[in-house]
C-alpha cells in the first residue's frame, strides 16, 4: 500500500498539474526586460516609461506576462480563443494595460502560467512610470528632428 502511495505521489507530480480557476488583476508586461534586468530595475520596465519597448517585445514574440499586485507574474499563453502568444495582435492591444482576467492557472517548475478565458476589465495604461524614469530604454523615443 505504501508503495502504491509513493507511485501515486510520483505520478501526480510527473503529470501536468491540474489547473485552478482564478481571477487576477495585473499589468501586461514584457517578461524578458522584467526578469533579465537588461534594461535596469524591474520598476522601470513597467507602465508608461516602458510602453514602447513593451510593444516591440510583444510584437517580437517575447512572452507577455501579467504582473499581479503581489508580484506574481503569470505567463499568458492564450486569451479566449486566441492562442497567438508569439507576437499576436491581442498582445499589442493589452501592452502595459492593467487588466482583470479570469482563467486557468497552471504552475510548473516554479513558473506560473495563465490561460485566459475572459478579460473582464481593462483599466488601460495607469502605471505612470515615465514621471519617475522618463523613457526606458532612453532611445525608445527618437529625438525630434530640427
Amino acid at each position, binding site marked *: 500500500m*505504501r*508503495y502504491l*502511495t*509513493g*507511485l501515486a*505521489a*510520483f505520478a501526480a*507530480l*510527473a503529470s*501536468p*498539474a491540474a*489547473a485552478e480557476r482564478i481571477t487576477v488583476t495585473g499589468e501586461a508586461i514584457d*517578461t*524578458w526586460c522584467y*526578469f*533579465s*534586468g*537588461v534594461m535596469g530595475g*524591474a520598476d522601470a520596465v513597467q507602465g*508608461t*516609461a516602458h*510602453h*514602447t*519597448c513593451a*510593444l*516591440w*517585445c510583444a*510584437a*517580437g*514574440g*517575447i*512572452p507577455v506576462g501579467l504582473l499581479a499586485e503581489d*508580484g506574481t*507574474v503569470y*505567463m499568458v*499563453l*492564450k486569451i479566449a480563443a486566441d*492562442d*497567438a*502568444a*508569439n*507576437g499576436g495582435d491581442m498582445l*499589442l492591444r493589452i*501592452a*502595459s494595460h492593467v487588466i482583470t482576467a479570469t482563467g486557468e492557472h*497552471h504552475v*510548473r*517548475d*516554479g*513558473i506560473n*502560467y495563465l*490561460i485566459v478565458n475572459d478579460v473582464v476589465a481593462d483599466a488601460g*495604461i495607469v502605471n505612470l512610470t*515615465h514621471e519617475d524614469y*522618463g523613457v526606458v530604454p532612453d532611445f*525608445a*523615443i*527618437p*529625438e*525630434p528632428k530640427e
Partner: protein
Amino acid sequence: MRMIAGLFAAALALPAAAQDFSAGSEAKEWGLLGEEKARFEAKVVDLLCELAGDCPADCGAGRRQLGLLRAADGALIVPMKNGQPLFTGAATDLFPYCGKDVEVDGVLVGDEEQTPAKFYMVQMVREVGAADWARANLWTKDWAARNPGPAAEEGPWFRKDPRVNAKIAESGWLGLGLEADEAFLKEYFQ
C-alpha cells in the same frame, strides 16, 4: 518507502535550474540578472499542449509559445529570448524543432528574489545527434519575409514594424494618447 516517495516528490517540486548546466557551453555572456551559461538536451514542446492538453497537430503553426522539456531532470524551461539583441523572442527559432529532441546552448537568467525559476535565452540549437549548430537568429528573417516593404527600408525592424507604428500613431509613445505625448516630449527633449 514513504520517505523515498517524499524525497522524490521534493526533488520534482524543485524550481528549474537548480543544477549546473554550464559544462561545454559556448554561449555569449550578456551580463544579465542571475545569468548562468546553460547547454542541455530537451524536447521542444507546445506549452499549451504540455500544460493543458490543448494539442494541435502542427504545434500551433508558429502562433504559440514553446517550451523546452529538459532531458536531464524533466524541468519545463521557458525560452523567452532568441540570440538577437533586437527585442525578439525564441518561439520562431524553436518552431522548426517542435516535437523534436534538441540540444540548446544559451543562458539562464533571473534573480531568485524575483522568481523561483530561471528563464532561458537560446543562442544556438541543433537536433540531438546533428553535427552543426544553428544560430537562434531566425526571427528577423521571418519578420522580413512577412513585411517585405518595411524590410527594404533602412533601420531596425522595430522602427519599421507596421503594427507597432500603428499603435504608436494611435496612442503615442507612452500609450496615454497623442496629447499626453506632446506635453511630455516637449519637456523630455528640452
